[in-house]
Every structure is written in C-alpha cells, then in structure tokens.
C-alpha cells in the first residue's frame, strides 16, 4: 500500500506533468529542428511564432464562444485551432517572402539568417503584444478534469490522489496524432521524401530535380502547424502570456540540440529528456520518501535538488553537458 501510494504520488506530480510538458516541448523542438534541417539556421523567432499562433487560436475561441458554439466537454480551443493554424501559416510564409527569401538568393551565412530571425522575433512579439496585450489570458473551457484526485481516492482507497487534467490528456493525444502524421508524411509521401533528401544533401537534391522553393514552403507550413499546436496546447495547459513563450525558447533549443539538430526523432526524445529532468530535479521528494523509508527515518528537509525558480537552469545544464560530451546530440544530427 505504502509503495502504491508513493507510486501514485510520483505519477501525479512528476510523470503526468512531465509527459504533457514534454509533448509541448517536443512539438516546439520539431519546428526548430525542421527549419534547421531545411534552411540551416536556428530560428529564434520560433517561440514568438508559437505565441502568435496561440493568440489567433484564442481570438477564434472567443469568437466561437460568443456565438455559443462549443464542443463540450472538450475545450472550444480545439475547434479554433485550425483557424489559428491558417493565420500562422500566413505569417510564416509572409516573413519567408519578405525576409528569408532574399538571403537564400544571396546564399548568406547561417549567422545572418539568425540575426534576421531576431528581427522577425521583435516584430512578431510586438504584433502579439499589440493585439492581445502583455497580460495573462484564460481561454480554457469545457470539462477541467479527466480524473479528479478525490474520485481516484474513492475508487482505489489509496491516500494519495491522482488527477489528470483534460488539457493534459488532449496535449498527449494531439501530440501523438501530429507526430504520427508528420512521420508518415516525411517517410511515405513524395514531398516528404524530397524534404529529407534536401536536408541530407542540398546539392544532390537539386541535381535530381527537387524544387527548393517548394521544399522550403512546405517546411514553413509544417513549422507553422506544429508551432500553433504547441503554443495553443501550452496556453491551454498552463496559461497564455506572451512573455513566457520567449522563455520557452531555451528549453526548446535545448531539446532540439540534445536530440541532435535536424533530427525529428531526436527532437521528440529531446523534448521528453528536458521535460523529465526539469520536473524531476525541481520536485521535492520528502513526501515520496516518507512512504518508502521505515518509520523514524523520514528526512526533515524537502529533498529537493534545485528550487523551482531555476527550472531554466536544468535545460541549460543539460545543454552544456551535451555540448561538452556529444555536440551532435543523442541521435547524431548534423554539426555544420
């Protein structure tokens, strides 16, 4: 019993939050890694692209709510997401045309793209703050929990409760579907194959008649879809605030690098590595140990490795370790 309680406690506070946070990071990192594979630069504007997509999802959610349309018990945001995605695709294709296309023709160094992406970040951030303001926005509706802690306790008779939020369930479900579709697309369709070929060897791909403009366009479209989904899910799960998306940039980059820049499977693995370490290192194990150790041995401190204020430090430390020992990442991405 004690052991089961400990297990439930750990699932409730570590496992479930880490899985949903990891899914959000994985989706974000997939976008970063895709742009890196095709356009060969680290897109600093990605966090704000996520915020932009999420913002339009929120606006459409409010519109649908005002019309009285809902898909309860699911949140209305799910219905609004496709509209958000369309607007976000418009944004990234617009920025590509206005900004990045020129540097592609110039064959500019990756660093120049990176600086240009900082400019795009500024503008996107400005637009988001301009339209929706810098404050917290709530847009979750419908049912809140799949399992409530109290119901779980009554069901099992354990003293620890397990609660799963609807947003967490949706996050995992949507991520699995999105990733399955993405991998099917990359591995089975003609366009997907040409994208992988372009990513592996640009010159060879061009020689075999692959249209680079089309590859780049598809890459941006996929990135916009992933970014909007990731941004909306994160907003649904926690809350939407433009500034937090800027701060998500670090864990997302860390996830993409841990997995190996340019490797989609690595981005997913990296997302979960970062999420699990972040939550495991900042969790206080006092209560957990209390269930496991014999009477009288309970620790009197929190048994917390790092205070939650430093969760960014975790992704940063992992990033440093990877750079020190395996700069190409776990799945051996490229290192140009």
């Amino acid at each position, binding site marked *: 019993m004690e052991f089961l309680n400990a297990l439930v406690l750990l699932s409730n506070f570590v496992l479930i939050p880490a899985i949903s946070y990891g899914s959000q990071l994985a989706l974000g990192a997939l976008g970063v890694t895709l742009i890196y594979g095709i356009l060969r630069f680290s897109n600093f504007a990605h966090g704000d692209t996520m915020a932009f997509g999420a913002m339009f999802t929120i606006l459409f959610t409010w519109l649908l709510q005002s019309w009285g349309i809902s898909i309860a018990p699911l949140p209305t945001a799910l219905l609004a997401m496709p509209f958000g995605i369309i607007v976000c695709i418009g944004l990234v294709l617009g920025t590509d045309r206005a900004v990045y296309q020129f540097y592609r023709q110039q064959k500019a160094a990756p660093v120049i793209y990176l600086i240009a992406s900082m400019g795009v970040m500024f503008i996107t951030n*400005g637009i988001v*703050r301009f339209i929706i303001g810098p404050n917290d926005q709530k847009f979750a509706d419908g049912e809140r929990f799949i399992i409530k802690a109290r119901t779980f306790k009554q069901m099992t008779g354990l003293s620890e409760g397990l609660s799963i939020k609807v947003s967490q369930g949706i996050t995992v479900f949507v991520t699995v579907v999105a990733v399955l579709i993405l991998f099917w697309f990359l591995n089975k369709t003609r366009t997907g194959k040409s994208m992988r070929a372009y990513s592996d060897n640009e010159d060879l791909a061009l020689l075999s008649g692959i249209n680079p403009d089309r590859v780049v366009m598809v890459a941006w479209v996929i990135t916009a879809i992933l970014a909007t989904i990731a941004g909306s899910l994160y907003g649904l799960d926690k809350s939407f605030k433009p500034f937090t998306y800027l701060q998500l940039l670090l864990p997302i980059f860390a996830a993409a690098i841990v997995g190996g820049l340019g490797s989609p499977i690595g981005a997913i693995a990296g997302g979960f590595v970062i999420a699990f370490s972040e939550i495991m290192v900042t969790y206080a194990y006092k209560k957990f140990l209390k269930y496991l150790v014999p009477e009288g041995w309970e620790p009197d401190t929190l048994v917390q490795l790092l205070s939650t204020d430093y969760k960014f430090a975790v992704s940063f430390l992992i990033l440093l370790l990877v750079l020190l020992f395996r700069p190409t990442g776990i799945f051996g991405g490229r290192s140009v």
Partner: protein
Amino acid sequence: MIYILGLIALGLMTRALFPNLVGLQPLTDTARNISYFVVMTLLIIIVGQLQSWNVALALVNLCLISSIMALGVNIQWGYAGLLNVGIMGFAALGGVAAVLIAADPITDAWSAGALGIFVAFIIAVVTVMAAMYTYRTMPKSNARGLAVFVIVILGILLARSFYGPAATAIEKIDPAASGYLGGLGLPIILAWPVGGLLAGLAAWVIGKVALGLRSDYLAIATLGIAEIIVAIIKHEDWLTRGVKNVSGLPRPVPYEIDLQQTQWFLDLAEKWGQNPATMSSIFVKLCYAALFTIVLLLILWLSQKALNSPWGRMMRAIRDNEISANAMGKNIVARHLQVFVLGSIVVGIAGAMLTTLDGQLTPGTYQPLRFTFLIWVMVILGGSGNNWGAVLGGFVVWFFWIQAEPIGLWLMDTITAGMSDDNALRKHLLESAAHMRLMTMGIILLVVLRFSPRGLIPEK
C-alpha cells in the same frame, strides 16, 4: 529656434544619407560621419528645448552607457563574428558587482549566515572536483556513470543542507530594510572594473564550452546563461535581495540635496538666475555624463588601438576565413575565447555603470528585449566592425527607443482623432502604443540588414 534646428538636422541627414536625392556628390567618409554626430547632437538639443534639459541629459547618460555596451558587442560580433545573445546576463553581472562592492555591509547577516553559505560553496566546489576526478580516473563503464551521478546528487543535497538554513537566517534579519549580506562599502567606481571581471569570468566558462562548435551553439548557450544569471539575481534574496531591489547605492557624484545647501552652488544659481533645484539635478547629471564620457573615450581608444594592431588584423582574418587563418597557424578557438571574454568585460563594465546611474539594482528590469536585442540593433545599425559606428548606433537607437513612445502615442492619437474618446478601438490603440517600439526596432533591424548591411558607418 526649434524649427530652425530641426530643419538643419533634417537637411544634414538627407545630405549625408541620400546625396543623389538632392543632386549632390556623396560626402567624404569623414564629413559624412561628422554630420551623423552633428545631427545626433542637434536632436538632443531639440529634446532639451522641447521637453527639458533634465530629460535630455538623462537621455544622454543612457546613450553613453548603451554606446559602451554596443562597443563590447561590436568587439565580439564586428571583430570576430561571434554571436552573443546573452548581453543581458553580462550586464546584470555588472549590476551585481555594484551591489557587492558599494552597498553597506550588514554585520548581523554576516554573523548569521555567511559561514553556512561559505561551507555550502566549498562543498559545491569539492563535489565538482570529485566528480571530475572520478570521471577521469575510472575506466569507462556503467559504474563510472553511476559513481559520478551519486557523487553529484549527494554533493548537492549536502550543500543544500548548509545553504538552506544559512540563506533563511540571513533573509530573516530585518527583511524590510536589508535581509541580505550587503556589500563591502567601497567606492562604487571600483565596481566598474569588478563588474567587467565578473562578466569576463562568466564569458570564459561559456566560451570554453561553446566555442569551437558551430556558431549557433554559442548563441543558444549565451541565451541560456543570461536567463540563469537573471534568475539567480531575482531569487537569491540573501545575495541581492531579489525582487525587493537594493536601493540607495552610494553615488560617485554629489547628491542634489547637498548641493542645494552648499553656498557656492546657491550663489552660482542666483548669478545665472536659475532655480537651485533644477540646476542641482542638471549638475548631477552632467557629472555622470562626464564620468561616462571618460570611460567611453578610454574604451573607444583602446578598441581602436586593438583593431588597428596586428592582433586586430588577425581577428578580422579569422572572421573572414577561418580555414585559411587556421592554415596560417592561428589558434582560432583560443583567439575566439579571448575576444569573447574581452567583449563581455566591456559589457559588464557598462552594466555596472548603469546600476550606478540608477542608484539601485532592480532585477525585474532585466529583460532580454531591452538588454540583448536592443544592443544588437545598435551594433547592426551603427555598422558592425566599426567602433565609431557602435557608438553612433548606441546613441541613435537609444534616442529613438525612448522617444518612440511619445512619437507613437502622438501618431495613434492623430490616427484615431476622429473617434470618440470612449471608443474601444481608440483606447486599445492608445494603450498599445508602447508595444510599437518593439515592432519599430524589429523593422529597423531587418531593413538595415537587408538594404544596408554595412550600417551607417561601414567598416573600413
């Protein structure tokens, strides 16, 4: 008067930037650069006339500090092509130095918890050394990984058991007024080099790890370290009081209130027919401006010397072609590390100066958009690789960063003038005018990068 000045500025600027527009030959480089600085001076004079001299001088002081930061980034990006996206962190370290050097020591707090903090620090250092020793000496195996893991976890828990109570004890001592260790109580000018030193140390660690890999990694690593440094400053109350701010840092210049009671100052004010209160505040700002100008000129002189020395030529050779420079026997990673540390030192000095000017450390104000990306716009706009360009960029960008808000507000007000006062759209637009400057900076960055990548004052 203002209109005449404005017209002169506009004319000079057009003449310098778009000579074909007025059908004249382009200016020589020197004449063009001088006209840029003249226009900048005129703009500041206009602000002085239009708003007040206090506002204008406050603007100049921050422009000077921004220029120094831009010089530091120019050393990294312009000389060597290194991308530092963590300028905020290095500037914040400078601010910490100002607190550690100049704030009054809190003796009670020292006796309450300094020992615990020190022990925790020693344990942390010993843990890292033990982990590294184990990693180096044991053969590669699962046992090695496990051993290192156990050492690190035990070390952290042990260090925290000393650190936690000590930090709490320190924070408990008069939390409303102090609740931290305080500083050394030394003159705050000393904090400027110390701030540079701290920033240089952090840069050395980051550079050691991230240099020699692909260029993006340095950018991302610096982004990370900046976030962490600011997080530490925000949350370690025993060190920097966290979000409670350390205010009332001593000044290197006289206080207004003292000046207003000094006889010679009152006589002078009377002689010039000025209000002593306004004049004292202008006098203090002038003192700051003089100090900052000295530092700026010193750093500018050193940077120019370095750029035109064999060392500077070597750096540019490495930047332009790493492979051939490497073939000539240059150690690229070592030179990059050197230049990265040097640039960060300059940023750290500027950060300490900024905290000195504010008289307080406010961790909540360290935001990447203001401290990192804005400095980037300065360097790119001014002209990467050119020190004068960085200085000019610092002035121009800071000027418009501050003035964009009144301009944006005025613009929004004009656009929506037809709407009634309680119109929701008009209200929203007026409230959002502040966010216009982010967009403006982004647009400036992109436009310069595309149409004039060499900036206002191009590298020679």
